[in-house]
């Protein structure tokens, strides 16, 4: 072993003040999340696209000279041109304006359905898993029953009772939409609640709800956000499927889903009728997924960098 010359080492001054210095600015949970989200490049791209989309949906109709219902039969099925930026559909209506209106409807339906599904699903699954035992069995069987009912039957009944319009559609979509989320949340929490930090929190005297909302749910955020980014397109497509059967948004109003399914048989001859609504759906989903991923990375305490 080598001998080290003691003079090579200098003692560090014990600076009491330096010990107390806070190297990292104090951030509330929210500010922390926002900061992490902003720094995430792909999430930022997603957010910018969503802002553009919001602008498109809100201001788009004012940019064009046409309304979404004005027909011009002689000008049907024209390809995109200076006059009709996205071309015309089979009744001579402007596809651009209709896509803007479609954005309003699809986004409204999608986001509302997703938020409702999120709240009901997380609460339901969280409670079932957290309380456990007979309550768990009871709550989940109710979920199973709702899921197993013939959906079409339920929807027809809803429409007969409530008529047409956006509210009945949202009810029809959220009737069973939350169940997938509830199951996934329940699964996650069942797994998480055996972790040591939960035991620690309980031992420290945290109330049951505090454990659930502050510890369990945020740590389950990963699958929750992934599921939520599935809920939105599912809501949009279910609405398109329902309108196949007369139960969606009423004509002449159209959602992206309806426009896409109308444009489908014309795919070979007038592709723009399918392309624009489908492209918008895909890009919106991409943006939502990027933001969702970024959000999950930002919220989950374990992924803090």
């Amino acid at each position, binding site marked *: 072993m080598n001998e080290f010359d003691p003079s090579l080492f200098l003692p560090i001054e014990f600076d009491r003040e330096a010990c107390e210095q806070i190297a990292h600015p104090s951030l509330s949970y929210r500010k922390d999340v926002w900061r992490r989200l902003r720094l995430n490049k792909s999430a930022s791209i997603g957010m910018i696209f969503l802002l553009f989309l919001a602008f498109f949906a809100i201001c788009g109709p004012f940019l064009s000279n046409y309304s979404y219902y004005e027909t011009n039969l002689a000008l049907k099925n024209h390809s995109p041109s200076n006059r009709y930026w996205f071309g015309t559909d089979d009744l001579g209506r402007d596809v651009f304006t209709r896509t803007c209106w479609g954005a309003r409807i699809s986004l409204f339906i999608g986001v509302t359905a997703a938020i409702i599904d999120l709240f009901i699903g997380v609460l339901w699954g969280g409670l079932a898993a957290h309380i*456990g*035992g*007979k309550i768990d*069995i009871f709550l*989940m*069987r109710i979920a*199973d*029953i709702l*899921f*197993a*009912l*013939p959906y*079409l*039957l*339920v929807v*027809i*009944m809803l429409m*007969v009772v409530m008529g047409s319009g956006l509210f009945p559609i949202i009810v029809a979509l959220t009737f069973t939409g939350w*169940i*997938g989320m509830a*199951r*996934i949340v*329940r*699964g*996650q929490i*069942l*797994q998480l609640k*055996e972790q040591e930090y939960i035991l620690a929190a309980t031992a420290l005297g945290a109330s049951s709800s505090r454990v659930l909302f502050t510890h369990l749910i945020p740590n389950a955020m*990963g*699958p929750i*956000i*992934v*599921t939520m*980014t*599935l809920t939105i*397109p599912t809501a*949009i*497509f279910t609405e*398109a*499927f329902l309108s196949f*059967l007369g139960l969606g948004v009423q004509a002449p109003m159209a959602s992206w*889903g309806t426009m*896409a*399914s109308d444009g*489908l048989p014309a*795919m*070979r001859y007038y592709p723009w009728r*399918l392309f624009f609504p*489908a492209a918008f*759906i*895909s890009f*919106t*989903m*991409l943006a939502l*997924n990027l933001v969702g*991923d970024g959000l*999950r990375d930002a919220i*989950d305490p*374990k*992924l803090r960098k």
Partner: protein
Amino acid sequence: MTRYILNRLFANLIALLVIITITFFLMKAIPGDPFTQEKALPKEILDSLYEHYKLNDPWYTQYANYLKSIVTWNLGPSFKYKSRTVNEIIKSGFPVSAILGLEALAISLCIGIAAGSISALKQNRWQDYGAMLFAVIGISIPSFILSAFLQYIFAIKLDLFPVARWGSFAQSVLPALSLAALPTAFIARLTRANMVEILQLDYIKTAKSKGLSEQKVIIKHGLRNALLPVMTYLGTLTANILTGSFIIEKIFGIPGLGQWFINSVTNRDYTVIMGITVFYSIILLSMIFFVDLAYGWIDPRLKVGKNLT
């Protein structure tokens, strides 16, 4: 554990009963019956039809008859398809849907889990972005558009596969791919989400520092814990996919159960609605039950079936 299983079975039976009851009343309550037609039928004809199909009996008699038919699994004749019974319909339609469903499941599980794991391992590199891009596309294109698209490109333009119908393996490829698109994407994303978290955890670092190969780390340690949400999803996915997708079966002309179910509601074919609902519910409740039991196997920390005080 036994007590838990018994409790669950009992709860499932009650759930089944509730499903049957609600379906029965919903069915009777919505406007239209099996004989509502555009050319209105004269009164004598309607009366004779109602008599023949016992629709004039009081509701509790009809309800009791349905319960009896379900218990004896003799589900009655179809109202619209006069030469066959519901049992025959299920027997002919289910195997078709099930085979297609199993193909799609196999694709979703293999590709989904593989893609998700690779993404998680190569987080934020091109493999991750590429795989997740495909996943987003899988989620954001509705099945009816994807089916029509695949049909047009691969069957019409490129003439690689048959356009439609059922019977040969080649005829099942395009429908299976269309059916598998969404589940693959979702499974990939679920797997990735959980894997990313788990790969950060200390015990993974421990395993790596112990010198275990990357593959072994993933499979033995990472994957098993990450798969729980996939298992959850798998429960309902299996039940749904085995009983058929209406859209895919319609577009590809496949004689499966999915078309039957939707058409029976549109036709108000009461016996078929009840029969298929019960059949589907039994499969669904059982799958969910298995998944719950499987939780305990996948993650030994999960105390399945133990009461928490």
